């Protein structure tokens, strides 16, 4: 039977196993919305802004491992989604974003709500397609899911002109797809893996450094097995938190600009660095000239372009981290040599010395609420089991430092692009993907206002998210840099005219709380978590002058941290 393009769209999603689409209707996608209306297999979640829709799909993907799906209209619908697409691109999140387009006859005509979506998204997608013929639609959708979810994942945009959604053709969804120009590798080169294992086992001061790649490849279990077998210290990047249990003794905390002293010092003094699914980002390495001066480096990554991009590598291994970690573990088990116990003992002694500096200490007796205290209490109250999304700024760093993530996919933040406004919509996606689970959004009064309209979406779909607003009246990270590097000239970092957030939340139909005393923090959190079916907006009035420590200033090496 012949179907319209719009019906083919819906059927393709169904056959792909898609349950949720986040989007916003408009002229160019009305045929598609009409087709969605007439079925129940694919649920559409109406966000209040296309950026919100894209972040929601992103949070859905990060928390579940399934690709996120977005549907927006042409022109402004597509441009509003760009920030969300770029956010997903920087963090390698599988996402398929469908953008409506003006009819093919009008493309290039400066038509109403026309924008060159393919051109404008090209630098921030893994790939994109313009579907000009309805006969290509199903195959293109299949290709898009294949590309988005394999290799190094990423967003794929499909631009569909309105007339294509009205044209008819026979529908069949391809079961498999292969592309001559796209064949991502899985297994690492065995010879290289053997060399890597040999080097690993010869280490005196080893360090394991892992990133988002471990989480994306669901390789947490393999990482834990290998790390425990070796007995080596391990650190995670901001994107990699949760891949290795934060409460484990071998875990040194996050590394990088606001990482722990022990993690950064251990990196700096290591003799063998084992980098897995991480990309040596500038926020991790500090001054690249001073990075790990004595280390031989092993780098495992699925993307060859990530290897030797920033840092020279001694043993590169291109492959899926899960497969390589398994291979490494079996080689370690088979090997006649085992880790150097004496050297390791010395190394751990040194590390414990660094750890005893207690680099995350803060004033626990403060009469004003400290943001760190809120996050510590949040961790205790949720028993470390919540899905925690965050926005961008000081609160993001505090959450990464003070919430102990023991499981992967629980920590959801915009690490690469650093997108303010990410937290709330991402929490919506995480809640849709994990009904019944506790989802918390840690944010600040700056970030939350960048997508606060999504409180309305949360009401419509009864998403019982708990919002932790660390309200210090400043764009805290900007203020911190202005204090450190611009002699306290607080240009535009003070937020005047803030709303009463608890009342604002109430007007959206949610529960609002305002917490002003340290003694009320724990009680408020307990009370909020008890409201299982309600969104609770907790406005914590926190210390205006608190800074994120420790810190590596720009241009410094990992061993040159500023401690409090």
């Amino acid at each position: 039977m012949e179907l319209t393009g719009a019906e083919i769209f819906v059927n393709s999603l169904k056959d792909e196993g898609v349950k949720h689409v986040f989007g916003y209707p408009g002229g160019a996608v009305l045929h598609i919305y009409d087709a969605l209306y007439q079925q129940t297999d694919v649920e559409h979640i109406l966000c209040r802004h296309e950026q919100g829709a894209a972040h929601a799909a992103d949070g859905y993907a990060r928390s579940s491992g399934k690709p996120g799906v977005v549907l927006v209209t042409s022109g402004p619908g597509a441009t509003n989604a760009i920030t969300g697409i770029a956010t997903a691109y920087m963090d390698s999140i599988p996402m398929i974003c469908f953008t409506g387009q003006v009819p093919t006859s009008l493309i290039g005509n400066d038509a109403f709500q026309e924008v060159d979506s393919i051109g404008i998204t090209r630098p921030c997608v893994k790939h994109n397609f313009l579907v000009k013929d309805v006969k290509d639609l199903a195959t293109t959708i299949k290709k898009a899911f294949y590309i988005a979810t394999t290799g190094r994942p990423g967003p794929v945009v499909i631009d569909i002109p309105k007339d294509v959604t009205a044209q008819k053709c026979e529908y069949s969804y391809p079961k498999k797809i292969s592309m001559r120009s796209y064949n991502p590798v899985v297994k690492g080169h065995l010879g290289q893996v053997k060399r890597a294992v040999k080097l690993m086992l010869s280490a005196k001061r080893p360090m394991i450094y892992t990133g988002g790649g471990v989480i994306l490849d669901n390789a947490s279990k393999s990482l834990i097995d290998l790390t425990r077998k070796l007995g080596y210290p391990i650190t995670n990047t901001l994107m990699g938190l949760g891949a290795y249990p934060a409460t484990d003794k071998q875990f040194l905390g996050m590394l990088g600009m606001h990482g722990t002293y022990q993690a950064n010092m251990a990196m700096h003094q290591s003799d063998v660095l084992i980098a897995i699914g991480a990309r040596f980002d500038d926020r991790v390495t500090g001054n690249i000239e001073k990075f790990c001066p004595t280390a031989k480096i092993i780098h495992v990554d699925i993307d060859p372009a990530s290897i030797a991009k920033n840092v020279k590598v001694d043993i590169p291994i291109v492959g899926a981290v899960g497969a390589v970690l398994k291979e490494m573990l079996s080689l370690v088990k088979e090997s006649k040599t085992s880790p150097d116990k004496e050297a390791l003992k010395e190394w751990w002694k040194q590390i414990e010395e660094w750890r005893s500096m207690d680099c995350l200490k803060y004033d626990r007796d403060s009469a004003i609420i400290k943001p760190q205290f809120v996050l510590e209490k949040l961790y205790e109250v949720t028993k470390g089991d919540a899905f925690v999304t965050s926005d961008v700024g000081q609160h993001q760093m505090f959450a990464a430092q003070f919430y102990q993530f023991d499981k992967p996919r629980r920590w959801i933040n915009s690490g690469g692009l650093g997108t303010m406004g990410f937290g709330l919509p991402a929490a919506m996606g995480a809640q849709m993907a994990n009904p019944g689970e506790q989802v918390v959004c840690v944010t600040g009064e700056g970030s939350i206002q960048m997508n606060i309209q999504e409180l309305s979406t949360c009401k419509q779909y009864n998403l019982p998210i708990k919002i932790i607003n660390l309200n210090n009246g400043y764009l805290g990270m900007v203020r911190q840099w202005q204090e450190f590097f611009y002699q306290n000239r607080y240009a535009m970092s003070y937020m005047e005219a803030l709303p009463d957030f608890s009342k604002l939340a109430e007007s959206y139909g949610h529960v609002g709380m305002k917490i002003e005393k340290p003694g009320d923090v724990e009680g408020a959190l307990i009370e909020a978590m008890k409201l299982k079916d309600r969104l609770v907006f907790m406005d914590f009035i926190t210390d205006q002058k608190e800074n994120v420590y420790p810190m590596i200033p720009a241009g410094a090496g990992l061993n040159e941290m500023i401690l409090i």
Partner: protein
Amino acid sequence: MENEAGALSRVAGLFSARGYNIESLTVAPTEDDTISRMTIVTTGSEEIIEQITKQLNKLIDVIKLVELTDGEHIEREMLLIKVKAKDKVKDEITRLCEIFRGHIIDVSEESYVIEVSGDSEKLDAFIKSLGKMEIIEVVRSGVSGIARGSRSLDV
């Protein structure tokens, strides 16, 4: 690479986004009209060239990539040049054309159009040899390249 709309802009966009140089870029369909062949001339340190290679390979439309300068290869570029050609200068131009194995492919009362092909240095040398003659217009095709011997870029 796949002979798809937008494939060229992906390559050009990659070079500008990452700040790589393109000295020249030529592209046209091959004997298989679903495939285009592109020759890019670029410069950079060994690390940069390695990154360019990896980033290009990452583009979904790129089927296969070889670095021709890794081995023996041939580079050819075509030059079309229009020069003022009056009176006794005509003989001089004809002689230079012969030396450089070029052809005069259009003749008018006052001008010649000359076609020369070869590697880029040869074309530079030809233009230089025209010396004081008045050049009206220069068109260069950019470099196309192919490996010597049996080495080939199959897909």
